Every structure is written in structure tokens, then in C-alpha cells.
């Protein structure tokens, strides 16, 4: 029987990739952020999941404005990293799990989610950095990947409520997947930050704390705001919380405990956080 071990949530700020490349994990600026990860690495090394189902957003590597899917599910045999234009290393290739991808796709469409399917897609830092943080110093990623991209770039974005519902539908698909696999669900991005406009540099720790406090047992609290409301509270890119909301949805109604949480301001222009919700 497929087992869902829980959820791993983290910020995916590109500068983290730069810090890893330069070996700055112990630097005073970076240490409070990287200190959040040994407990997460330990948990993953104990649980040894086989597959990661990851909710993330693309930043103009795979998707451009010519075709912008609201929800896109990867169904490839492998997913490559590539040059994003501003100096991050090209990361390791991910092995896909097309059988599980197509099972999720069938289940989502049956559930009336009109998703886009991608048999070829690049994944950007929003995928690679969370993996680098979770499994540092490995030659190959120890899990197979099912990526699910949510449009957080071009409005109208899907509502928070819809993202939670999408996640819940993915969770039901995982429940009905006939395998012996252990699955970790991931949500990447956030927390509050705004890169653009006269309000650039906006951070809102009160809202971030609200999200962190309600993620475990009351995710409905996170979906009461409109997208404009979330942007107002979290910043234009803080809306990446949608990925966390969807990932929380995929964990379903099972009992969860918060195994670890770290919150630190700032990493680059961002309030950064990492969390594990463990299924008990």
C-alpha cells in the first residue's frame, strides 16, 4: 500500500543556490536559514521516501507567456535543470515516475480539474534548491519526481481555495495508487516577499506566522483571502504560498504533527521558512 509520509515545505529563493555553490552554509548571514535543514535531512534519511510529489511554480524557464497553464502536471521520464540566465549552476537531472504521473492526471481530470500535461518539461530552481537542501552531497536524487506547477506569474491566478482543492484531489489520487511506494509531498516558495514595484522589499511576518500556525490543522484559514488579498498581505511573489496550500491539501485529513519549523528574515528579499508535517 502506498504510504504518504508527510509534507516538506521550504522557500526556494535563488540566492540559496548561490550560497550552496559558494559553501556559505555556516556564514552568519546564512546559518540561521540552513540550520533549519538538518532535522529535515534526518527525517528524510529515516523515512527514505521513493517518490516526491512537488507543488512549485516556474519562473520563466519552462513556461513563457505564450502558453501559461494554470495547473501543469509533469509526466516525463526525466526532468532537466537548465540555465536560468542569472548564474545559478545547472542542477542534477530528476528521474520521473510517469506511471504515477498518469495515474494522478487520470484522477484529476476525472475529478474535473482541467490540467495541462507535460511529457517534456524543464524544472527550475524552485525544484532543485529544495532538493539540494533536503539531500545535500548526493550524486543522484534518491527519489523519483512528479512535478505539479501552479501559475503564480500571470494573473488571474487560481484561487487559494482552488489550490487547496487541487491538492486534496492529488492526495486522493495518491491514496488510490496501488504500490509499495513511500511518498513525500512538497510545497516550495514563499514566504512573504515582493521583488517588484515601489513596495519592493515588503515582508509581513504577522501573515507568515499566521500561515505557519494554521498550516497543520486549519488550512481552510489560509484560503479565506482572494488572490489580491494574499498579494496585499504576502507581497507579489509571496503568493507562492499557493504551492504550500496545495501541498497541504495533498496530505488530506490524516493526523499530522509539525516535526520541525524554521522561520528567518531575510534571505535575499524574502522571509524564508522550512517545515515538516509528519503523518502519524
Amino acid at each position: 500500500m502506498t504510504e504518504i509520509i508527510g509534507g516538506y515545505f521550504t522557500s526556494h529563493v535563488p540566492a540559496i543556490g548561490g550560497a550552496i555553490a559558494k559553501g556559505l552554509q555556516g556564514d552568519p548571514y546564512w546559518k540561521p536559514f540552513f540550520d533549519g535543514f538538518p532535522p529535515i535531512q534526518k527525517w528524510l534519511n529515516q523515512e527514505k521516501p521513493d517518490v516526491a510529489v512537488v507543488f512549485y511554480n516556474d519562473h520563466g524557464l519552462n513556461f513563457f507567456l505564450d502558453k501559461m497553464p494554470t495547473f501543469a502536471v509533469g509526466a516525463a521520464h526525466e526532468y532537466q535543470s537548465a540555465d536560468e540566465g542569472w548564474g545559478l549552476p545547472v542542477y542534477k537531472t530528476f528521474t520521473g515516475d510517469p506511471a504515477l504521473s498518469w495515474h494522478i492526471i487520470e484522477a484529476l481530470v476525472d475529478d474535473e480539474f482541467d490540467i495541462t500535461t507535460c511529457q517534456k518539461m524543464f524544472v527550475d530552481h524552485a525544484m532543485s534548491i529544495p532538493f539540494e537542501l533536503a539531500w545535500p552531497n548526493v550524486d543522484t536524487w534518491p527519489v523519483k519526481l512528479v512535478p505539479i506547477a501552479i501559475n503564480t506569474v500571470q494573473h488571474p491566478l487560481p484561487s487559494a481555495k482552488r489550490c487547496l482543492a487541487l491538492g486534496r484531489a492529488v492526495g486522493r489520487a495518491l491514496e488510490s495508487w496501488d504500490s509499495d511506494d513511500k511518498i513525500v509531498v512538497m510545497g516550495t516558495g514563499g514566504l512573504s516577499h515582493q521583488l517588484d514595484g515601489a513596495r519592493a522589499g515588503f515582508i509581513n511576518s504577522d501573515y507568515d506566522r499566521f500561515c505557519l500556525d494554521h498550516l497543520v490543522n486549519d488550512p481552510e484559514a489560509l484560503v479565506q483571502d482572494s488572490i489580491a488579498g494574499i498579494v496585499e498581505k504576502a507581497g507579489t511573489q509571496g503568493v507562492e504560498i499557493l504551492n504550500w496550500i496545495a501541498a497541504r491539501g495533498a496530505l488530506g485529513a490524516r493526523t499530522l504533527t509539525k516535526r520541525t519549523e524554521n522561520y528567518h528574515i531575510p534571505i535575499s528579499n524574502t522571509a524564508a521558512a522550512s517545515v515538516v508535517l509528519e503523518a502519524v
Partner: protein
Amino acid sequence: MSAMLVSERQPIEGTTLFDGDMAQRGYALNAMCYSFNDAENREEFRRDEEAYCRKYHLTPGQRRAVADRDVLGMIAEGGNVYYLAKLAGIWGLNVQDLGAAQTGLSVDAFKAKLLSYSE
């Protein structure tokens, strides 16, 4: 008739929501920036910025904003920051530099502002 901007429906101070109107307005500029995922294109832009902007049919307003390194101007002309960041990378600017440019602060003052949220 085009839909109202999301930001007009519910204005947020100092914030432009990148909606359909902005996505249409900024298409050429964002397409140019998207091309910078390719190192050869970044090099071509460095060699002849004017010709490269022409090749991507930037509007006069977009061309002016790029020539002036005017970040708020690029945003106003429909630039999306995820794509503009690739252009900024060519100029050796990171998101703190962009933040400083948009807020009128020095880079040090912008970094101090970010740190102040942790207090």
C-alpha cells in the same frame, strides 16, 4: 473592451499585478528577457543592445526604459520581474539592487530595510 486591471479593482500601494493587460503590454520586453536563458543570446545583447532590442520589437517606451536601466519604467511597460531578473543578471544586478532602484534607496539602505523586519 478590456477587463479592468486587477490592481484597479483593488489597488495595492506600490504594486502592479501582472494581469492580462500587463501581459499584453509587456509581451515583447518579456520575450526578449526570456531569451536570456540562453548564454549566446545574453552575449548577443551585450555586443549590440540596440540591435537586440530591435530584433525583439520592443516598443519605444520599453526601449527607453531598458536604455535608462529604469526598473519601474520596465514594470510600467509590462515587464514581469521574473523575466526582468534575467536582464538584470546581464547587468550584474541582483534583487537587492533592483529593490534599491525601485524604492529610491541605496543598496545598503534597502538591505537594512529588509533586516529591520527581523527585529
